[in-house]
């Protein structure tokens, strides 16, 4: 069964592998973060279409990000990253201004330190930073003669479920609530899910989560209902700058390659594709990204691997352990003497 890469490695036809015959081409998202203007239309359009509840009205202090992360009630999440470095040949106009050291480090520290004591360590979307009650950092700019900031860029990026070729959430789901659709996407069926929570830990991207008041797991469906009527997902449709592009995955990959080359040529050498490679740890993502920094800066794992990769090995180890237990249990009675 592993020979055909059902569990790991490049897989050209995940829908077919999941038993869909005569299925449409695999579709996906290509999110080009270099044109994202951080408007969050994707978040709202997604919520409107899918009737997702509001997920907490908290000021997070993460630049303009008040969503925090993806979760059961946020299927799109726009990240905002403020950095001391230039974007390609862009000039933030800081040279010759009477500026001191940057505050990006310190503001991030405030948020991070506070999240550390938050519920679930900040693993909940919308978790408000908790007041620590003691000074956690030096006042920004009060620094010790550190150098003046000269560069700045503000990155925005709309995150979403990756719809992995090998989806950890789907593989571990014990009810079949999560399934692979004919479009090659990964969808939770709310009529089936019993809220076991296994998928939450199965996802190497931290995407899917359980909604506390509802008990079921939720995540992006790539608007399965719209897809079935030949429409594009709500987020991609709304996106004002076409940062979120939807289409057959093969086409998107070609488009992404062209865009990457174009950006490199334009001097944005830091541009990189994430999740595009079918040889990666999840067999390539159905939703992949063009990033302007390393993935972890946006909250992505740099090299995710589907846990199922080691399925066989794990069962083997368990088998050995089980056999050993059986053997040991038998052995302890073999002493013969009743004592």
């Amino acid at each position: 069964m592993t020979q055909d890469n059902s569990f790991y490695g490049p897989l050209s036809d995940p829908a077919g592998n999941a038993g869909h015959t005569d299925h449409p081409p695999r579709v996906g998202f290509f999110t080009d973060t270099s044109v994202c203007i951080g408007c969050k239309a994707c978040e709202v359009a997604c919520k409107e279409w899918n009737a997702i509840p509001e997920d907490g009205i908290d000021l997070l202090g993460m630049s303009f990000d008040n969503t925090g992360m993806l979760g059961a009630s946020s299927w799109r999440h726009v990240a905002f990253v403020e950095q001391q470095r230039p974007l390609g040949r862009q000039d933030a106009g800081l040279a010759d201004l009477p500026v001191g050291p940057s505050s990006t480090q310190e503001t991030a520290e405030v948020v991070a330190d506070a999240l550390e004591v938050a519920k679930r360590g900040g693993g909940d979307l919308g978790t408000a930073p908790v007041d620590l009650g003691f000074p956690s950092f030096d006042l920004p700019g009060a620094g010790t003669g550190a150098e003046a900031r000269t560069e700045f860029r503000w990155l925005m990026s709309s995150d979403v479920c990756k719809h992995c070729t090998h989806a950890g959430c789907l593989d571990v789901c014990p009810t079949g609530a999560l399934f692979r659709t004919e479009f090659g996407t990964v969808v939770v069926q709310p009529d089936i899910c019993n809220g076991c929570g296994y998928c939450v830990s199965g996802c190497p991207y931290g995407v899917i989560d359980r909604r506390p008041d509802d008990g079921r797991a939720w995540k992006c469906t790539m608007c399965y209902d719209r897809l079935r009527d030949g429409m594009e997902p709500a987020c991609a449709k709304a996106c004002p700058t076409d940062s979120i592009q939807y289409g057959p995955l093969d086409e998107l990959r070609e488009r992404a390659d062209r865009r990457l080359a174009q950006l490199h040529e334009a001097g944005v050498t830091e541009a990189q594709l994430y999740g595009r490679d079918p040889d990666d740890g999840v067999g390539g993502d159905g939703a992949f990204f063009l990033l302007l920094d390393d993935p972890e800066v946006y909250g992505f794992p740099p090299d995710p691997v589907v846990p199922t990769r080691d399925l066989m090995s794990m069962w083997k180890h368990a088998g050995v352990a089980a056999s050993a237990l059986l053997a040991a249990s038998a052995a302890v009675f073999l002493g013969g003497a009743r004592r």
Partner: protein
Amino acid sequence: MSREGAGRHGRGGRDDDGSRERSMVPKATFRSYYGRPVLKPPVWEWKVPAYLFTGGLSAGSALLAAGADLTRRPELARAGRIGGFGALLVSTYLLVADLGRPERFHHMLRVAKPSSPMSMGTWILVAYGPGSALAAAAELLPAGVRASLPGRLLRMAARPAGLSAALLAPGLASYTAVLLSQTAVPAWHDARRELPFVFTGSAAASGAGLGMLLAPVAEAGPARRLGVVGAAAELVASRLVDRRPGLVTEAYTTGRPHRLRQASEYLTLGGALTALTLARRSRAAAAAGGLALLAGSVLQRFGTFEAGVVSTKDPAYVVKPQRERLAARAEGGG
């Protein structure tokens, strides 16, 4: 914004009693999104680690009961059968109660997925349950019914039932290790080779502990031996977990998970030593040793569980090893 070198992990800001203070140690070098976790912490709370224990206990007990039955140790068999079934009932309750939608527990039977340890575990439980129940029922028959025809039939069925449960018990004891390993939780996934041994060892030790506690010293020899063997396996495997290379191991060796597992180690070791020594003579000592083994097993499960939770809350456990892996690959490739 990216926190360059601002991971929680390795900031030295957390000492062993869990309090935090300002770090004076150089910050680790990795970047993250405002220190937010990359992964979602498991939604499971105490019920799942509790189930890990009760499931293991049930399995260990069933094995012991079957052996005792075959070797005519009625008290030990009785303790194992009833204890095993009792633990199974508690397990079932814990599993169902932990669901977000408990009324949909039967959806677990929709599919049989080899890729889902929970699905496999469900089917193992389904297969294991009747045997365990039958065997326990036979033990629990009121005196008046024992002689009746149904009573006699039931007692005749008890042995095969107990044996069937015992045959499935090792699966029950070990699948939970795969259940945890088959996740993106760094501490669990990384320990995927050792965890089955920790868990089966722990299952054996807890089953044995129950036997030592409930059965008379005279019948409890196999329980003591199983306790020693199980404890040894658990201790060794657990130590191996602690010695794995890489950052993720720190999830086990620091903080609360470390304290839980350390306590578990002491109790298990103590229980095993008791089993080897005093428990052979003293019922009280046997009971104490049994309790120590049981407690050790409980703490082991909670410690392991919490190590996993901790490893999801700190992005360092995700980012750093993956970065290192990428770097190594780049080096190897080029």
